[in-house]
């Protein structure tokens, strides 16, 4: 399917591989005056440009390009696109790291929606505290607003030990202090903000401190990547949702003795890879998701 009108979207949202989620506990809705200002955006996760491992995925750039082409054919177009880290696959060579980040930027630059937001994964930023990333893509944590919804971008990877850190926590606290508690807030980050499966390093060390800062806000949704599969978790009233990677699938947490990419299946190319469409509205407490497999594109 190459184009997608609104009816198409709603239809897709009801069938296999897709998931629509709503959550209770919204309480009073902020900014009800903003009703009717619904919009959509796309989340890419773990695009791993530079990853080339034929038994798993011979060319991660080509998979990303496939996703980009599909987004470019969407009707209507999403308002913007977010990439939640591991844009590139890691390398010890600082020059090669810059080359991969630049290659990623070139491919992402081919997106029709011109508002594109990035954040780093440990593969991009964990070996040099985000130095190359900042040179090529800019800030690793920041905030933006769209049609009444607040987006908070958190960096939990520039520290190779996967902490957000006291400095950024103080920044988050200051930013959140400016936002009415009932306003819809979407957090974008790379690692889960909870102990999903620390045995596989699927955690953020000081996630509890971040959650404590988010706690007073009544309409919070966390979108992240890192685990290369769809996953949904509630931390109290805060929903945390991992999206599929475009590069490779990882096994379900703890399902195999050793974490390793799931091999490419010639009978089912792109199995487990995909992206996510998010339907958001300032008048709704939480967004709705459609997980879009690359295989169908």
């Amino acid at each position: 399917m190459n184009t997608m009108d609104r009816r198409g979207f709603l239809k897709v949202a009801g069938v296999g591989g897709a998931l629509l989620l709503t959550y209770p506990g919204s309480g009073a809705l902020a900014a009800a005056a903003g009703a009717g200002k619904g919009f959509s955006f796309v989340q890419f996760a773990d695009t791993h440009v530079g990853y080339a491992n034929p038994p798993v995925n011979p060319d991660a750039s080509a998979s990303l390009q496939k996703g980009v082409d599909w987004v470019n054919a969407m009707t209507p177009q999403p308002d913007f696109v977010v990439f939640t880290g591991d844009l590139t696959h890691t390398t010890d060579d600082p020059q090669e790291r810059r080359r991969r980040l630049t290659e990623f930027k070139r491919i992402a630059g081919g997106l029709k929606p011109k508002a594109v937001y990035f954040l780093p994964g440990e593969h991009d930023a964990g070996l040099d505290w985000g130095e190359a990333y900042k040179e090529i893509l800019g800030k690793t944590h920041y905030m933006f607003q769209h049609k009444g919804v607040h987006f908070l971008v958190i960096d939990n990877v520039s520290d190779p030990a996967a902490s957000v850190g006291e400095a950024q926590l103080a920044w988050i606290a200051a930013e959140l202090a400016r936002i009415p508690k009932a306003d819809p807030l979407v957090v974008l980050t790379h690692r889960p903000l909870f102990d999903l499966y620390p045995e596989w390093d699927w955690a953020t060390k000081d996630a509890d401190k971040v959650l404590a800062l988010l706690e007073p806000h009544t309409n919070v949704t966390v979108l992240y990547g890192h685990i290369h599969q769809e996953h949904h978790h509630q931390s109290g009233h805060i929903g945390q949702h991992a999206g599929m990677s475009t590069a490779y699938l990882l096994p379900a947490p703890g399902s195999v003795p050793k974490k390793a990419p799931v091999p490419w299946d010639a009978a089912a190319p792109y199995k487990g890879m995909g992206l996510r469409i998010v339907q958001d509205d300032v008048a709704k407490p939480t967004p709705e998701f459609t997980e879009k497999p690359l295989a169908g594109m």
Partner: protein
Amino acid sequence: MRRPTVSGCAAALPRLTLLAALAVWLLSVSALPVPAQAQAGGEEAGVQVIRVTAEKFEFKPEKIVLTKGKPVVLELISLDRVHGFRCPGLGIRVDVAPNKVTRVPLTPDKAGSFPFVCDVFCGDGHDEMSGVIEVKE
């Protein structure tokens, strides 16, 4: 990147010291009731010491066999750069640095299989840098 330490240091040591250390090591592991290849280190005041090395991108040994209720000391050292050692099931989380032995006293109070992982991002291959502590009854 520094590529220092254990091998470099060992090369600088007098040969005799090395031989003596090897002899002590052989004696200590042969006296242990566990598979020798998985356990190295020694024994101090009746407490078994298990040496675990970390380097890109593996732990050695990858499988550590312990006995429930029997105290041991894990001695962790890196052969290249900083790694992490996290074993959530047994509540262990330490940095593993080069040029420094990190000692973790441990008396497992339950039997089972407890995976551990490097939790300090160390490069390509970090994602597969892991192992397991098996605790027997």
